[in-house]
């Protein structure tokens, strides 16, 4: 037993402390309960649910628990693992076992397995991840960045309310509140609005409490906001609101399709929440932490700000150029040309490049502290491209062309091909930005003060960024395909 324990300890790395059996057993228990709950909700075999949940919890406790160092980190690793489990088993192995070359049939099978996806995320990933995250937080608080409750709740609550305010105002004209969509037929507008802001406040405050330690800047905050927005669509829209309204739970893909508009609303809300939280958080840090002379850096923030804008514009231009064939082929360029009357596709290309440079500047500002290597640059760049697919062609472009944004599954289906162009744009922009930045920092790091700053920018192994990429990028692409 001791040999096994030591080999497990060696496998899971230095983060593990104390008995290595506590986490697996805790995971086993929580997973089994979650599996039972899931099977009850899906009306499937209880034994199957308990067994699957128990195994998931056990595996999570063995291999992922040392990464769940806080409830927020646990949540991300939990839902990421649950999504991976769903991709491997119900969407992957089971249809493959059923028979080869059934492309549309495999998609139909995956749609049919959509309730399992919801159950995996909410009954397995979330409870197991959060429970082990709480345990991890109690175990490994030493050496981690200091957590401040006030900062988390105030900044998160304000950001959440502000995000809700923007969408509440925007959507109230059509009596559509993204955070309570599908719930509105049963209540008055005032009740809907109160509920909308209540949920916004709760999401914002919990966002701050869960992810304060993991967020390093605007870019990662938007990434976490995107992931948290998707997660709340599953938790709030598909689950809690029907429960509160005493409506039978419907986790089917068809019901998900009906609520697709709310999914986009949640994603955009998450992005606004993320960027607002990061802004408030940065203001807090700037006023109370970085203003301290003990924390002063060699190069002031103003210089870095201007430099990031310039590099971002150039990187965005390169990204726009490389992605323009895809944008042209998918019909986005002519649409952009339609922003001004009588524009040809060439004019559309010019406007596209101009917008690309502007969006590239936003990359420079938001993600300048995130990507310190090619791998990280590509990952954040893809997430950045996904974010702009939801913001650009799904929201801003129709708003500017018609005054109304269409968040239907039909609109998402029509725009799905352009998602590739956005992903290419994001990755190329991120890589170009990194190369420009490296060209500058390569000689600056001969200055030991700046070398120390560059070292601090490297995101250490073990943070929940990888599951965030998998969860946000996976579901951000998968859901429009599945629900369309």
């Amino acid at each position: 037993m001791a040999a096994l324990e030591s080999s497990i300890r060696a496998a899971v790395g230095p983060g593990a402390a104390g008995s290595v059996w506590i986490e697996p057993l805790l995971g086993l228990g929580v997973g089994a309960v979650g599996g039972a709950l899931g099977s009850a909700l899906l009306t499937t075999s209880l034994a199957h649910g308990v067994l699957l949940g128990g195994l998931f919890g056990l595996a999570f406790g063995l291999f992922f628990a040392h990464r769940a160092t806080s409830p927020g980190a646990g949540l991300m690793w939990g839902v990421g693992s649950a999504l991976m489990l769903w991709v491997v088993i119900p969407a992957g192995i089971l249809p493959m076992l059923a028979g080869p070359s059934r492309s549309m049939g495999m998609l139909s099978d995956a749609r049919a397995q959509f309730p399992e996806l919801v159950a995996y995320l909410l009954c397995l990933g979330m409870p197991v991840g959060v429970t082990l995250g709480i345990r991890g937080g109690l175990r490994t608080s030493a050496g981690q960045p200091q957590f401040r409750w006030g900062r988390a709740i105030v900044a998160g609550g304000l950001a959440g309310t502000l995000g809700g305010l923007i969408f509440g105002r925007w959507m109230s004209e059509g009596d559509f509140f993204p955070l309570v969509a599908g719930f509105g037929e049963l209540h008055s507008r005032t009740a809907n609005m109160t509920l909308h802001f209540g949920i916004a406040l709760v999401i914002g405050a919990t966002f701050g409490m869960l992810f304060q330690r993991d967020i390093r800047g605007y870019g990662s905050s938007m990434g976490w906001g995107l992931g948290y927005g998707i997660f709340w669509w599953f938790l709030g829209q598909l689950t809690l609101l029907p429960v509160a309204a005493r409506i039978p739970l419907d986790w089917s893909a068809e019901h998900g399709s009906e609520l697709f508009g709310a999914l986009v609303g949640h994603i955009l809300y998450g992005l606004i929440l993320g960027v607002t939280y990061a802004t408030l958080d940065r203001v807090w840090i700037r006023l109370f932490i970085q203003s301290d002379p003990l924390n002063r850096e060699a190069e002031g923030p103003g210089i870095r700000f201007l430099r990031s804008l310039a590099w971002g514009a150039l990187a965005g231009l390169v990204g726009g150029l490389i992605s323009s064939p895809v944008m042209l082929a998918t019909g986005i360029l002519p649409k952009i040309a339609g922003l001004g009357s009588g524009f040809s596709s060439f004019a559309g290309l010019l406007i596209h490049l101009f917008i690309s440079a502007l969006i590239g500047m936003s990359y420079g500002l938001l993600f300048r502290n995130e990507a310190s290597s090619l791998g990280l640059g590509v990952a954040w760049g893809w997430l950045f491209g996904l974010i702009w697919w939801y913001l650009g062609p799904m929201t801003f472009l129709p708003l500017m062309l018609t005054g109304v944004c269409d968040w239907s599954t039909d609109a998402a289906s029509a725009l799905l091909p352009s998602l590739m162009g956005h992903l290419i744009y994001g990755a190329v922009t991120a890589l170009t930005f990194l190369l420009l930045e490296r060209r500058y920092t390569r000689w600056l790091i001969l200055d030991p003060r700046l070398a120390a700053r560059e070292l601090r920018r490297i995101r250490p192994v073990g943070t929940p960024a990888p599951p965030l990429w998998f969860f946000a990028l996976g579901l951000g692409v998968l859901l429009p395909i599945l629900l369309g």
Partner: protein
Amino acid sequence: MLGAAVGAAYAGISRPTRGAYVDDLMAAGALGVPLWGLVSVITFPLVSGQMPEWSAGQMRAHFPALVGWVLYGASLGLLAQGLSDIVDRVLGAEPARRASAPSVTKRIVILGGGFAGMRTAERLEVQLRANPSVSITLVSDTNALLFTPMLAEVAGSSLEPSHISTPLRSSLHRTEFIRGHAAEIDLEQRRVILGNGSADEGTGAPREIPYDHLVLALGSVSNYLGMANIEKLAFNFKSLLDAIRIRNHVIEMFERADRESNPSRRQALLTFVIAGGGFAGVELAGALNDFAHGILADYPNLHSEELRVVLVHSRNRILPELSESLGQYAQEKLEARGVRFRLGARLTDAQPGVVVLSDGEIRATTLVWTAGTAPNPLLNSLPVDKDKRGAVIVDGTLAVRGHSGLWALGDCAAVSDAKTGKMCPPTAQFALRQAEVLARNIHAQLEGRRTRTFHFDSLGALCVVGHQTACAELTVPFFRTRSMRFSGLLAWVMWRGIYLSKLPGIERKTRVLMDWTAELFFPRDIVQTIDLR
């Protein structure tokens, strides 16, 4: 093959960390999603000779490939991590990259932290980039670059002293900065010997700095033409401390005059003599005149009739660097604001309370010297060719003839323009351009490339003569022989705009802008910051 290529690319861009299986599982699983789009949706149809359909239906038809790519990515992450761990175990962990001390093979030493020295260091940093084999050292007796065009405003209490100085340490990144002064330059041994400084700096052995390239950017000092009394009694106007001293001295004179009952002595206390009618003297006269008249409101016992700012100049007109009409304009404006002129007169001596001119005396307790400069006296000991001012003669590439690796520029060098053959004036405008050419030439020599010669056409000159009044003579772009003249408020706005843009650093710009804005609403400060009694 595709799998191998993707795997190799993944290994290239990821940072393997021992035991990080779950991290790689998730990161590489996420990688599978965009790879599906790039490969299955776009590349495969193109390779098979078809255009991608770009429809949602086609993308949904590739759904199995999406699942496959995610599973491939996740497996790739686990396998890459596993192989990395096995290799670590078999071959041993890759030694961590140690921050090896750069092996310096060439040393560039710059003497002087003025415009010329600072810009040379900045340009060398850019030219040499990450080349750790070349070290740059800058030696300066002050730790900040003084923006001299605004020095008169410090003396006139318009700007805070530190706002026009940029710290050299903050501005330079890979240059070693040494605050000190060079006591000796050994051209044979190629080394610079630093002085011990003041007694309280310790009496250890003098530090020696070896060099391969030595840049002389030592600037100039005031030249009193051998008049010892003037040197003893006059204020210098070259450094930030000089400006601070002048400002505090003016306030001190007002305080003394306020309690002085003897009209003659009071008159002497309130008389301020400035020697020299060049840019520095004229701008200082205008600034002191404005300052002195402005603070009269705080001294009800003193009257403006008692106040005298006198500018002494040996020629018949001031501002010889500008055209005659602008010089005349400046003189008229200054006279209208109360400045008096003694033109065609030379300072011959000074006694406490008396300034002696070639054509009479002025009873004054304040004398500021801006009438002459000479290259840094350290150059006197160097066995190199010098002109009659004592400046080091350099060739067109700014190299000192007969001494390999020795360069000079700025006020301490006699530089002739490669195109016109004329001597370059000792101004910041020329020093900055010389620094760029010099840095490029040092870099070229290090890399065995050809050096280039120095040529620059002056952009023009600007001079403030009082409250919201200036005169400017700017060269017409592309017509270097013609110039445009401006005067009055427009020239003043140009002066402020141009020099604010030239002031190094956005922080300093902001602070100066705030000072100028505050000056519009509040009177100038009369708080004494140093005790001159």
